């Protein structure tokens, strides 16, 4: 009964989105106020009903109602409660429903927080949001119904992939989707502005907080996934350039570019058409990303043959949204008057370089991700484009980006003084270069690229700090007062850039100086890695809720003193039958010691295959991202972004 109510609520939400998408928009175009007033209530109503639908599906998972196909396929009674709940979105249908839920949530949020927006823009934004929603509801109802019943139904479900039974991955999709879908708001604002034919500083100020919010969630979501891959897959790697990862990384790159170009629109009233285009592309990448990950359709052209219905729907939907918005852009972009000129050396031109590099980088990643698909379609060859491609092509583009990133904030708007910047930051640059070389030798040398990345990380860190210190006049009287009075947006920028600097150092450390050993170890054997003495004590059998496991015990000594005991596990799940490894990690600021236990090497079970990794500065990568997201949220709390805050005169 509850499941049917969910289904019914979903149909209601679908109908409401149709009403919200058409009537208020028509009202706004023809000046009918009564129709326009439908916008907000339908947005709230839609969110209400899709919440009921989502709740109903979650309920079916919690009580393990196996008469629902989706539950029978993806759940099991013995699964811990957390994973019954997270199984709701751990499958194709449920994840699309989660998408629709978050879309409606953002729609309701815009309806609520955007009340002070100009009425016609408000209505248009909400209508576009509703039309995107309509597409998702139809996709769910017509091709991927999460509430489909099964008869006769099984007594037990077939379980969720054990690799996904992990707290990190339980929360990875919701966070990522909050990011993906957040970009829909920016998209709706962009399309709304195109219909209005007007983009100004105020528009940029309304759009930025939504972009920033989406960016924060996207950053956190991607990193959570990467962190999961790091500790759960047991390979000591954190990024594989897998299509699934690239799918989330491309919108991130474009969203980052958008975040910066919107500042130029706000401050200098220029780059308008470009910003609108970025908003459209960012959301297009989110849609593409969702479908690459969830349906598998885009990873193989042959998938259309096995499920033509979904494939055709997805293609048509993508075509409509992306093609439609680009067409509108082509028709209306010239209506957006270009603003002032800008000098080659100025903050805005640095931001333009940032935008060029980020969007080209996104194109490179897209090429690498879709090229195998293209080649398959054209020649029938099945190929993969490996990490070396991305590391070289993408990595190289990041070098100028990080260089400019250090300079940009120190350059003033309109016309900056190059000689001044160079004389001030030259010293910072030289210092970070020397520091990088010193660290490079301390860490034992290695590839020259390692020193380059180390140098770039340190440069960005120092330049960011220098710019902040300069801004608050750190060494003059009353510095504390000025520190406190800094606008939140610029404090957030400093944290954001600092976070990336820390993360770059972490990436360099763990990629270039990581070491690894694979050994057959007997009880009592000792191995030295990363300055630690690792002693294999013994193993124990463990029985978990839905698995059995072997747990190893390793004593970790540093300078003869025990600092930790690591207990990696090799688990064997029962439904579905599948082994997983649970790595044990000892993290310090200097690096991670990472141990994985494999299988027994002999019949007496006292020799085991063991893998050990030492990843210097690994924690810096995760910590850096935390600082970045923190910066994003600080910036978000800036007064300027509050809807309806008094319009400041733009200089």
């Amino acid at each position, binding site marked *: 009964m509850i499941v049917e109510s969910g289904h019914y609520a979903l149909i209601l939400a679908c109908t409401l989105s149709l009403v919200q998408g058409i009537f208020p928009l028509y009202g706004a175009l023809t000046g009918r106020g009564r129709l326009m007033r439908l916008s907000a209530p339908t947005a709230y109503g839609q969110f209400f009903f899709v919440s009921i639908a989502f709740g109903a599906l979650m309920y079916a998972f919690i009580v393990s109602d196996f008469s629902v196909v989706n539950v029978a*396929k993806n759940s099991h009674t013995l699964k811990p409660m957390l994973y019954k709940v997270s199984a709701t979105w*751990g*499958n*194709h249908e449920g994840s699309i429903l989660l998408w629709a839920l978050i879309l409606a949530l953002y729609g309701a949020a815009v309806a609520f927080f955007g009340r002070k927006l100009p009425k016609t823009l408000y209505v248009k934004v909400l209508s576009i949001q509703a039309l995107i929603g309509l597409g998702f509801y139809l996709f769910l109802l017509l091709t991927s119904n999460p509430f489909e019943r099964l008869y006769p139904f099984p007594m037990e479900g*077939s379980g*969720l*992939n054990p*690799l996904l039974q992990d707290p990190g991955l339980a929360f990875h999709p919701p966070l990522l989707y909050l990011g993906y879908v957040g970009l829909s708001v920016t998209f709706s604002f962009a399309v709304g502005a195109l219909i209005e034919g007007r983009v100004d500083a105020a528009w940029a100020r309304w759009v930025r907080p939504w972009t920033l919010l989406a960016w924060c969630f996207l950053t956190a979501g991607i990193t959570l996934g990467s962190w999961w*891959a790091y500790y759960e*897959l*047991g390979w000591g790697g954190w990024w594989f350039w*897998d299509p*699934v990862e690239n799918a989330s990384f491309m919108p991130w790159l474009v969203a980052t570019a958008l975040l910066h170009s919107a500042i130029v629109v706000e401050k200098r009233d220029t780059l308008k058409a470009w910003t609108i285009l970025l908003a459209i592309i960012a959301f297009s990448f989110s849609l593409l990303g969702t479908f690459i990950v969830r*349906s*598998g359709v885009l*990873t*193989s052209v*042959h*998938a259309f043959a096995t*499920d033509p219905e979904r494939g055709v729907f997805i293609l048509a939907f993508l075509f409509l949204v992306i093609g439609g918005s680009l067409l509108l852009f082509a028709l209306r972009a010239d209506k957006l008057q270009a603003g002032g*000129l*800008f*000098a*080659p050396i100025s903050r805005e031109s640095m931001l*333009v*370089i940032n935008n*060029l*590099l980020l969007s*080209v*980088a996104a*194109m*490179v990643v897209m090429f*690498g991700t879709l*090229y195998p698909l293209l080649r398959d379609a054209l020649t029938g*060859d*099945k*190929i*993969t*484009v*490996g*990490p*070396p*491609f*991305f590391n*070289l*092509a993408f990595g*190289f*583009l990041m070098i100028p980006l990080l260089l400019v990133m250090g300079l940009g904030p120190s350059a003033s708007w309109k016309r900056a003084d190059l000689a001044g910047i160079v004389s001030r930051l030259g010293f910072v640059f030289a210092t970070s270069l020397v520091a990088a070389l010193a660290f490079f030798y301390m860490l034992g040398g290695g590839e020259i690229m390692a020193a380059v990345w180390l140098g770039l990380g340190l440069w960005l860190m120092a330049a960011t700090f220098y710019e902040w210190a300069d801004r608050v006049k750190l060494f003059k009287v009353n510095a504390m007062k000025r520190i406190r009075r800094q606008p939140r947006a610029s404090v957030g920028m400093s944290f954001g850039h600092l976070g990336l600097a820390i993360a770059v150092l972490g990436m360099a450390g763990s990629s270039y100086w990581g070491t690894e050993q*694979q*050994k*057959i170890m007997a009880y009592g054997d000792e191995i030295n890695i990363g300055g630690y003495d690792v002693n294999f004590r013994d193993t124990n059998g463990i029985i978990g809720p839905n698995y059995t496991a072997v747990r190893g015990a390793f004593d970790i000594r540093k300078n003869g003193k025990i600092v930790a005991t690591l207990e990696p596990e090799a688990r064997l799940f029962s439904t579905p039958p*599948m*082994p*997983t*490894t649970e790595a044990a990690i000892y993290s310090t600021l200097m690096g991670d010691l990472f141990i*994985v236990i*494999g299988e027994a*090497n002999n019949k007496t079970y006292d*020799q085991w*295959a063991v893998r050990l990794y030492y990843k210097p500065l690994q924690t810096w990568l995760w910590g850096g991202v935390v600082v970045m997201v923190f910066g994003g949220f600080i910036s978000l709390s800036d007064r300027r972004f509050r809807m309806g805050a008094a319009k400041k005169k733009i200089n």
Partner: protein
Amino acid sequence: MANTRAGKRKTKRFYLLLTSMTILLLAVGLVLTALQDSISLFLDPSDLAESNLSDGQRVRLGGLVVEESFFKDEDGLTYRFDITDGNETVKVIYKGSLPDLFREGQGVVVEGEINNSGPFFATEVLAKHDENYMPKEVIESLKKRGVFQYSDGEENI
């Protein structure tokens, strides 16, 4: 006045265009260089038998691990197993650690270099980290060779 302003705009447009073109060309150059060494072709054992690729070319080989073909060398870290697509079978030698999902009778994709004179030396056994247990390429290959068995759980392939 209007003229110089327009002229200025033009020079600035030109700078912008120049910068964008430089970055784009740089990117295209990078893409082409980087692509050279990082493409690997996917083959199944039948493809491999028919292919006339030369030694040393990087490829991915996929198929089912033959039941009871798997064994470990003395050192405990070198593995030998056979990969089949139902028609042809290839012997594979791999030194390293195996992913959790590796089992006899299951699909697998390994990466390595073509070795026309003997077994296939894999440098990597790929771990797929999504909920489809069977690598997509392997399913397609098995369907093509007519040995794919459909089961109830077939979805999202």
